[in-house]
């Protein structure tokens, strides 16, 4: 069954105000051991000025999802094989590579997890920042490019920007590097910014600072942010809405408070329950039995069923449809209506 974008209400769809609308996106990897369905029918949407968190563990396909949105999936092994990615109404999957290059970095941009890898160690920061600026506007003079670089750094609150431009990546801390990467991504004030685990490699005290920075950029420019993470703390701090990803598909979507207060999918519940809490003294953590399925060899029915304590026969046989709990809250689970977990 091909779910259409269920959470986008009729009215919203008609008004067309979502800045990013993804419908049934599929990205597969072809290896000699079979086809890996990294992203297997993902639908989501994003409004300007809001932050959508995508939470999942390793093997869920979330990083491939991020790469698919900007069409940077590793070739030739992987291929986007279906779906639609509408950015401001334009289908990114229908563009030629040349057209996509114009869009990438300008209208939709991305921050990767490890700032070590995003910055080239042999070039100065200024050099790389100017390159990011000049790639979309060839007519800038050196002076203009320099000005833009300085103001980009100022917008991410980097102190002494002129000096920083002369530094090399190894002279800077992780947090500083991530800011600069952020500045490069925001240089053209894109409509959508995708951040793939931007805080994972940063220190605890820097993480919150960085998320605040993203929020600040969002308030000033109205950019829509897709924040990919495995950490519910990041979700709680920075997101407006959340989508939970498991084995290549979205299993639940809801506004952030709802995800924490009233999760409707057993996987979401299990994830939330397995976190050690700062303020509790539980003696045992609840963990999830088993392992995620191999994306090369997926079961027929619900992909979480083998590990789910609420699974019934139907769960193993048929993949559940995405059901709406309320406006904006959807979950793909046969049992979400009865909610057998409610009385625990």
């Amino acid at each position: 069954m091909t779910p259409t974008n269920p959470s986008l209400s009729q009215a919203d769809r008609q008004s067309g105000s979502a800045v990013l609308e993804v419908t049934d996106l599929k990205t597969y990897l072809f290896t000699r051991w079979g086809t890996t369905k990294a992203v297997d029918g993902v639908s989501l949407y994003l409004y300007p000025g809001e932050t959508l968190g995508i939470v999942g563990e390793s093997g869920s396909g979330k990083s491939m999802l991020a790469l698919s949105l900007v069409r940077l999936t590793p070739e030739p092994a992987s291929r986007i094989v279906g779906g639609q990615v509408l950015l401001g109404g334009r289908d990114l999957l229908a563009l030629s590579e040349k057209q996509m290059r114009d869009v990438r970095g300008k209208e939709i941009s991305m921050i990767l997890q490890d700032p070590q890898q995003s910055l080239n160690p042999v070039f100065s920061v200024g050099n790389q920042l100017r390159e990011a600026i000049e790639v979309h506007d060839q007519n800038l003079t050196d002076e203009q490019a320099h000005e833009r670089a300085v103001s980009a750094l100022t917008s991410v609150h980097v102190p002494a920007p002129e000096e920083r431009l002369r530094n090399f990546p190894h002279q800077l801390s992780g947090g500083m590097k991530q800011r600069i990467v952020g500045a490069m991504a925001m240089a053209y004030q894109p409509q959508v910014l995708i951040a793939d685990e931007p805080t994972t490699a940063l220190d605890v005290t820097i993480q919150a600072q960085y998320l605040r920075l993203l929020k600040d950029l969002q308030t000033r420019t109205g950019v829509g942010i897709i924040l990919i993470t495995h950490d519910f703390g990041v979700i709680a701090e920075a997101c407006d809405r959340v989508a939970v990803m498991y084995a290549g598909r979205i299993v639940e979507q809801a506004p952030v408070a709802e995800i924490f207060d009233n999760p409707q999918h057993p996987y979401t519940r299990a994830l939330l329950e397995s976190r050690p809490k700062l303020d509790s003294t539980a003696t045992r953590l609840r963990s999830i039995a088993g392992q995620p399925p191999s994306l090369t060899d997926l079961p027929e029915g619900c992909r979480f069923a083998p590990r789910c304590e609420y699974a019934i026969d139907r769960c193993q046989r048929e993949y559940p449809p995405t059901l709406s709990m309320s406006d904006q809250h959807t979950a793909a689970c046969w049992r979400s209506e009865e909610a057998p977990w409610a009385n625990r």
Partner: protein
Amino acid sequence: MSVRNAPRGTEPRGTPTKLDEFGQIKGRSPWRWSRRSNRTPWVSILIIAVVLVLPALLADVITVHDPLRGVLSDRLIPPAWEDGGSWTYPLGTDKQGRDILTRMIYGARISLSVSTLTILIGAVVGSTLGLLAGYFGGWIDRIVSWLIDTFLSLPNVLLALVIVAAIGPSFVTIIAIIAVTIWASFARQVRGETLSVRETEYVARARVAGAPSWRILARHVLPNVANTLIVLATLLVGVVILEESSLSFIGAGIPRPNPSWGVMVADGRDQILTAWWVSFFPGLAIFLVVLSLNLFGDWLRDHLDPKMKQRG
């Protein structure tokens, strides 16, 4: 890897996917040739087997003529398919009446044995020094690195000529000369890899476990360095064969009348225009074998590496 009742990890299974199912793909489709480049290079392997290995092993059994002494009345007979040729001497004879094909088969034995021995010596000496230098650092590293730099900049040909002028050419001499230059390549590579393996957490754990240095080198460092070592060795076989051929060509290698391919090419030098087959066939053999070894070595490198980076 055999498939057992293992936990669901990354056991390879299934057959390779066909491309046609996904018609609506946009962009390039280089998937086809990447698949081809990962295919086992059967042609190269075949060539190596047929031109180098089998003749070397079976020389005594499959040849009829004497490789060292010829029949003078049968000098410079062209290959069988040409005018004046005959199938007694399928590839013709040289100016001493010796059968080219027989000499090439024995020549394969020489090439194989010289290269195997040289690489064995070079690999053992080079790897040991590389391991010690990379793992212990300090003065050991300084000395070994200096040695590596020095030996890599030696002019082999000049050196060979000088030594041969002094003590005369022989098997042992040429093996020694080539080994002396080869060991440094091994040492450099192994040293570099050892440096990075030394910093890994599994070496740290072995130290925490209390393992002595020799055990760490033998069980933790060497096996992880072995991959690239094998690839390097494979690629260097071609280099050694070329070097032996070149040295033999100028008279500083295998002594005559032994039929090293290089010697054979040199022998035919004067008659290149009239009796082309004397130089051509051994030259062709050198070219084919070295090319095949290079292709095989490349494939080996690609084939061995990605498996290591597989994540559970």
